[in-house]
C-alpha cells in the first residue's frame, strides 16, 4: 500500500476523541489507592453529543480532566482530533474549551464584558472580532443587559451563562461540559441545554462531551451515552438503544404508604435485577423502582408488603429509563451507589 | 438570655478560634504567626533604635526599655482588632458558617466576643515568647542593657492593665465587625488604618511628646496611649506617669469605646438582617 493511501486511511479512521485503556489512579486520603478510571476505551465522533452518565465519584470529571489536558493519565492513551493529550497538549488546547458546572471562573471586580474580552485574548482573538463575538454570545444567551455589571453582582444562573459564553468564545471544535447545569433552576438549566444542543447540531456543528448525573439531561441531549461506575464503562450506546435492550427486563414503580420500610428483603427475591427507593416525607410514602427479569417478581414484592401489613398504593409498569439501565447494570440507583461509597 | 447559653457561646467560639487560628496542629505555622513575625517586628524597631543611637553617639537604655515594652504589648492591639475584622468575612463568605451561627440560640455578639478572647489568648502566648526571645537576643547576644528588673515587676498591675486594655480593643473590634457585616470591602483597610494610627500616635515606640502639638492632642485621646503607659509603669522603675491615673483614663476610654462599639454593632446587625446581608457571599 502506498504511503499516501496509508495516510488517507489513518485520517479516515481518526475519531474526534479516542481513549485506549485509560487508567487513572489517585492516592486516597488514608494513603490507600483510588482507581478513578479503570481501563476506559471510548471513541467519540465529530458532531456528536456524547454523554458520560454516572453517580458522584464515578470518574466522569477525571475523564474530562484528562481529555482537557488538566490531568495526566496513569496509563493508557487519549487523543483529541488525533493529538495526544499527553504529548501534544497545546495543540489540543487550541481546539477545545471546558465549562464546569458549579464553578464560575472570572474576576468578580471586572464586568461581564471585561471578563469575556480577557478570556478572548487567551485564545488570540483580535479585539474587534472579540467584541463582536462577545455581543453575539451575550445576546444569544440572554444576558446582554448585564454586560456592564460586575461579575460578583450576578446570580448563579447568570454566572453560568457567562461561564458558557467563556467556553464558546474561541469557537471550539470540541466543548467539554462537566455537569454544566449543576445548581441551576429548572428553567435556566433547560435554556442552557437547548442552547448547547442548537450549538452542536445547527449552528457550529461542534462535538460535545457532557458529563452529568442527571438522567433526563443525558436522555434529552445525547446521541450516545456511556454509563460509568467506579471508573469503568458499563454500557455505551444511544439512549434509545440502551432502553430498548432493557425492554426484555420489565421495570415497575411500586408506591407504598410508609416511609420506614426496609427494602433489603428485595435482594432475596428471585428475579430482581436491581432497585432504587425514594422516600417522600410529605406524603408519607416510599416509591420503589424495580427492574426484574420477569413480571412475576412484582407480585412477590406485593405479597411481601401484604405480609408486613404495609399498604401498596399503586403498582405501575414503566417505560425503561436510563436510570433503569443503570439499575440493571449496577443493581442499585445513583443515590444508593453514592451512599455506599461515602 | 440565660447565662449558661452566653457562656456556652463564648466557650465554643474560643474553641473554634483555637482550632482555626492557633494552628497548634502545625507548630511551624504557629511559630510563623505568633513568634517569628512579632519577633521580626521587634528586631526591626530594636535595630532602628540601636543604629540610630550609635550614629548619634548616645544610647539611652530607658528609652530602649520604653520601646521594648510598647512594641511587644502592641501585639494585643493587632491581634484582637485583626481577628475581629477578618472573622466576619471569613465565616460568611469563606467558611459559610456565619448564618448558622447567627441562627443558633447563642447570640452572634457572644460568638464574636469568644473569638476576640481567643485572639487575646494567642496574643498572650506570642507576648511571652517574643519577650523571652527578645531579651535573649538583645540582652544576652547583643549585650544591650534592658533596665527591667523582672522580679520587681508589678504583675497584678500588668494583668489589670491587660484586662481593661483588651476589653477596650474588643470594643474597637466590635466596630470593625459591625462595619464588616455591611461590607467586606474594607476588612483589611480598617485594622491597618487604626493600628497604623495607634502605632504612630499611641506612644508605642517613642513618647508622644516629640510629636507636633496637634498630634499630641490626638494621642491624649487614644486608649492605647493609656494602656501602654499603665503597662510600662508596672514594668519600669522609671515612671512615665501615674499608674492609677493612667488606669483611670484607660478605664474611661474603655467605657466610651464599649458604648460606641455596642451601638455600632447593634445598628449594623439590624441593618444586615434587614438588607439580607447575614448570608451574602462577597468575593474579596
Amino acid at each position, binding site marked *: 500500500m502506498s504511503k499516501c493511501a496509508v495516510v488517507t486511511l489513518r485520517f479516515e479512521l481518526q475519531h474526534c476523541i479516542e481513549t485506549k485503556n485509560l487508567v487513572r489512579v489517585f492516592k486516597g486520603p488514608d494513603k490507600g489507592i483510588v482507581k478513578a478510571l479503570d481501563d476506559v476505551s471510548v471513541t467519540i465522533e465529530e458532531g456528536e453529543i456524547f454523554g458520560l452518565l454516572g453517580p458522584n465519584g464515578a470518574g466522569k470529571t477525571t475523564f474530562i480532566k484528562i481529555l482537557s489536558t488538566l490531568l495526566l493519565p496513569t496509563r493508557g492513551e487519549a487523543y483529541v482530533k488525533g493529538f495526544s493529550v499527553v504529548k501534544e497538549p497545546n495543540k489540543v488546547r487550541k481546539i477545545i474549551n471546558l465549562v464546569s458546572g458549579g464553578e464560575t471562573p472570572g474576576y468578580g471586580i*471586572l464586568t461581564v464584558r471585561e471578563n469575556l474580552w480577557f478570556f478572548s485574548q487567551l485564545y488570540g482573538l483580535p479585539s474587534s472580532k472579540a467584541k463582536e463575538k462577545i455581543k453575539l454570545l451575550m445576546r444569544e444567551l440572554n444576558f446582554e443587559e448585564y454586560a456592564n455589571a460586575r461579575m460578583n453582582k450576578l446570580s448563579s444562573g447568570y454566572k453560568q451563562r457567562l461561564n458558557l459564553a467563556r467556553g464558546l468564545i474561541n469557537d471550539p471544535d470540541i466543548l467539554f461540559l462537566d455537569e454544566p447545569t449543576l445548581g441551576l433552576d429548572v428553567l435556566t438549566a433547560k435554556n442552557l441545554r437547548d442552547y448547547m444542543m442548537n450549538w452542536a447540531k445547527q449552528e457550529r456543528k461542534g462535538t460535545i462531551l457532557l458529563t452529568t448525573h442527571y438522567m433526563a439531561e443525558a436522555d434529552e441531549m445525547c446521541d450516545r451515552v456511556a454509563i460509568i461506575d467506579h471508573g469503568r464503562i458499563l454500557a455505551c450506546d444511544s439512549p434509545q438503544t440502551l432502553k430498548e435492550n432493557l425492554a426484555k427486563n420489565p421495570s415497575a414503580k411500586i408506591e407504598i404508604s410508609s416511609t420506614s420500610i426496609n427494602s433489603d428483603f428485595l435482594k432475596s427475591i428471585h428475579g430482581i435485577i436491581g432497585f432504587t427507593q425514594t422516600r417522600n416525607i410529605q406524603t408519607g410514602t416510599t416509591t420503589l423502582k424495580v427492574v426484574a427479569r420477569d413480571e412475576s417478581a412484582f407480585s412477590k414484592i406485593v405479597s411481601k408488603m401484604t405480609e408486613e401489613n404495609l399498604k401498596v398504593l399503586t403498582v405501575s409498569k414503566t417505560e425503561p429509563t436510563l436510570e433503569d439501565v443503570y439499575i440493571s447494570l449496577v443493581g442499585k440507583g445513583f443515590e444508593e451507589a453514592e451512599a455506599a461509597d461515602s | 438570655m440565660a447565662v449558661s447559653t452566653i457562656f456556652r457561646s463564648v466557650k465554643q467560639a474560643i474553641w473554634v478560634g483555637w482550632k482555626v487560628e492557633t494552628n497548634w496542629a502545625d507548630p511551624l505555622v504557629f511559630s510563623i504567626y505568633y513568634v517569628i513575625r512579632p519577633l521580626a517586628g521587634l528586631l526591626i524597631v530594636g535595630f532602628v533604635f540601636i*543604629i540610630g543611637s550609635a550614629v548619634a553617639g548616645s544610647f539611652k537604655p530607658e528609652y530602649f526599655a520604653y520601646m521594648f515594652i510598647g512594641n511587644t504589648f502592641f501585639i494585643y492591639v493587632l491581634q484582637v482588632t485583626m481577628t475581629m475584622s477578618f472573622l466576619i468575612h471569613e465565616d460568611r463568605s469563606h467558611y459559610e458558617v456565619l448564618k448558622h451561627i447567627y441562627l443558633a440560640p447563642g447570640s452572634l455578639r457572644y460568638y464574636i466576643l469568644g473569638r476576640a478572647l481567643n485572639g487575646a489568648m494567642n496574643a498572650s502566648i506570642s507576648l511571652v515568647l517574643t519577650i523571652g526571645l527578645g531579651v535573649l537576643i538583645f540582652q544576652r547576644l547583643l549585650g544591650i542593657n534592658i533596665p527591667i528588673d523582672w522580679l520587681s515587676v508589678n504583675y497584678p498591675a500588668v494583668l489589670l492593665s491587660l484586662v481593661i486594655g483588651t476589653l477596650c480593643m474588643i470594643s474597637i473590634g466590635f466596630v470593625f465587625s459591625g462595619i464588616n457585616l455591611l461590607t467586606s470591602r474594607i476588612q483589611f483597610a480598617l485594622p491597618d488604618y487604626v493600628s497604623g494610627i495607634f*502605632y504612630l500616635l499611641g506612644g508605642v515606640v517613642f513618647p508622644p511628646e516629640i510629636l507636633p502639638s496637634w498630634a499630641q492632642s490626638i494621642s491624649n485621646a487614644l486608649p492605647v496611649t493609656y494602656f501602654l503607659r499603665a503597662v510600662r509603669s508596672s514594668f519600669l522603675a522609671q515612671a512615665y506617669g501615674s499608674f492609677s491615673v493612667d488606669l483611670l483614663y484607660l478605664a474611661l476610654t474603655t467605657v466610651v469605646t464599649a458604648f460606641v462599639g455596642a451601638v455600632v454593632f447593634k445598628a449594623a446587625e439590624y441593618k444586615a438582617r434587614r438588607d439580607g446581608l447575614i448570608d451574602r457571599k462577597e468575593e474579596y
Partner: protein
Amino acid sequence: MIEDLVFNLKVAYARLWVRVKGGNREPHWILTEVTVPILTLSAYVYLYKMLNAPAEFAGFVVIGGTMIAFWSNVLWNMSAQFYWEKETGNLQMYLVAPISRMAILLGMAVGSIVNTALRAVAILAVGILIFQVPIFLRDPAVAVLIFVLTIVALYTLGMLFASLFLLYGREAWHTVSLLQEPVHFLSGFYFPVRYLPFLIQLVASAIPITFGLDGIRRVIISGETAIDVLPHVAALIIFILILMPLSKLALNFMENLGKKEGRLTLRWQ
C-alpha cells in the same frame, strides 16, 4: 515562532490589563495603600528624630517604606496569585487555554509593577515633603538603572514563588506570611543593612531587594555614583539571570507534578 511570541505577548497584555483595571477599580484601595505605609514609616522617622540620628536616616526610612510596597506586592499579588486563581476556579481556565504560562506570569508582574509604582511614587513624594528628606542625587540615570534592575529581579523572584506555590494551598499563604517582617528586617528596609552583624548581612545578600534598597539609598540620599554602586548593579543582574530561567523551570516542573498528582485544580487543601 514569531507568531507564537506575538500571541503570548498579547496574552500577557490581557493579563496585565486585568490587573491594572481590577487593582484600581476601588479608589479607597489606593488611598489605603498609600496612607498606611506613610503612617508606619512616620513612626520610624520620629524614632530616629528622638534618637537625634542624622537627617539622612529619615531618607533611608522613606525609601525603605516606598520599596515595601513593591515587596508586599511581590509576595501577595505574585507569589500567592496562582493559589488565589485556584481558589476562585480561574486556574483551570488558564491551564486549558493554548497559552504560555510565563505569559500569564509576565502580565501579572507588569500589571503589578504599574499598580504599585503609582502608589510608591505617592508614598515617596509625601514622605519627602512631610519629613523634608535631604536628597543628594548626582546621577539620576544610575538611580533609574538600579531601580529598574531591582524591580525586574524582585518580580522574577515573584514569578519563581508563583510557580512553586502553584500546588500548595495554605502552605503558600503561610510561607508568604513568613517572608514579610523577617525580610523587612534582614534587607534593612528601615536602616542600612551594613550596620547589621556580618552573618546577617550574608543571609540578607540572598535577597535581591537588599542590594536594590542599599543601592538606591546610596545614589539618592548619599550622592554616590555609578562606580560606587557597581557591585549592586552586578549582583542584581546575576539575580535576574538566575531567577528568570529558574522560574520557567519551576513552572514547568510544578505544572507537570500537579497534572501527575491531580492537584492542579484541587481546592481548599
